[in-house]
């Protein structure tokens, strides 16, 4: 199941969907300094937040899972990380519906999208 999801991700993922830098810049008035500061903040914070999401999933705590997924979703939406936002939103919705098993099953996909996003951010910052 995870392999299938990964394949789908690989096939459908365009760079813009991983990190829409242009869209983010448009939303903040083209201020590159703000974009870099916020994306750097995201990179620092998100591993901790994802670890908390995983811990909540291991504890089977749907409420905490929803809260952490929601926070990651909000952060992803703000910086234009569309793919991550979509997947983590699904985690949030399933956790809200107390479908913990389904939500937990999506975490490998969230992790994969996070890795891709961090790679895209590194590439963008290296330019």
């Amino acid at each position, binding site marked *: 199941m995870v392999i299938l999801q990964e394949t789908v991700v690989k096939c459908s993922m365009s760079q813009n969907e991983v990190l829409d830098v242009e869209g*983010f810049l448009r*939303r*903040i*008035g083209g*201020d590159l300094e*703000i974009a870099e*500061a*916020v994306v750097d*903040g*995201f990179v*620092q*914070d*998100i591993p901790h*937040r994802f670890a908390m999401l995983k811990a909540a999933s291991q504890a089977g705590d749907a409420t905490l899972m929803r*809260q952490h997924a*929601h*926070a*990651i*979703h*909000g*952060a992803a*939406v*703000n*910086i*234009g990380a569309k793919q991550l936002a979509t997947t983590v939103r699904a985690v949030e919705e399933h956790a809200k519906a107390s479908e913990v098993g389904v939500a937990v099953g999506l975490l490998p996909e969230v992790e994969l999208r996070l890795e891709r996003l961090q790679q895209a951010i590194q590439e963008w910052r290296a330019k």
Partner: protein
Amino acid sequence: MRTLIVEDDFTGRLLLQELLRNYGECIVAEDGVQAMKVFEENMGKKQLFDVICLDIMMPGMDGQQVLKKIRSIEDTNPPGSKTRTKIIMTTALTDKSNVFMAFREQCDAYLPKPIFKEKLEAILAEFGFSRT
């Protein structure tokens, strides 16, 4: 303009701080409980906030509860003693029930994520605030 940013997500806090840095002082709170503490402490010192950017889904005390509590505190103030704080809901929750509830509890604006600088500045301009 004196602003209180209430947001549990670090990236969201950082973005709002950056977008508002030219408007004046920004204080941040990481959840609803901390927000109420900061709000009441500042009120006690008569250091009022002009604007509060308030997320909804936060652990402990959510933004809807914070909004309701702030408005109930403001209602106990003597008439004319202070201007009501402008409260902007800054949230990824866009379902009708949350929007309806926020306006019922007297928020002043609802700004869904992703945050657009232009929209935020348009709301602030409508409130009569500009960059310093």
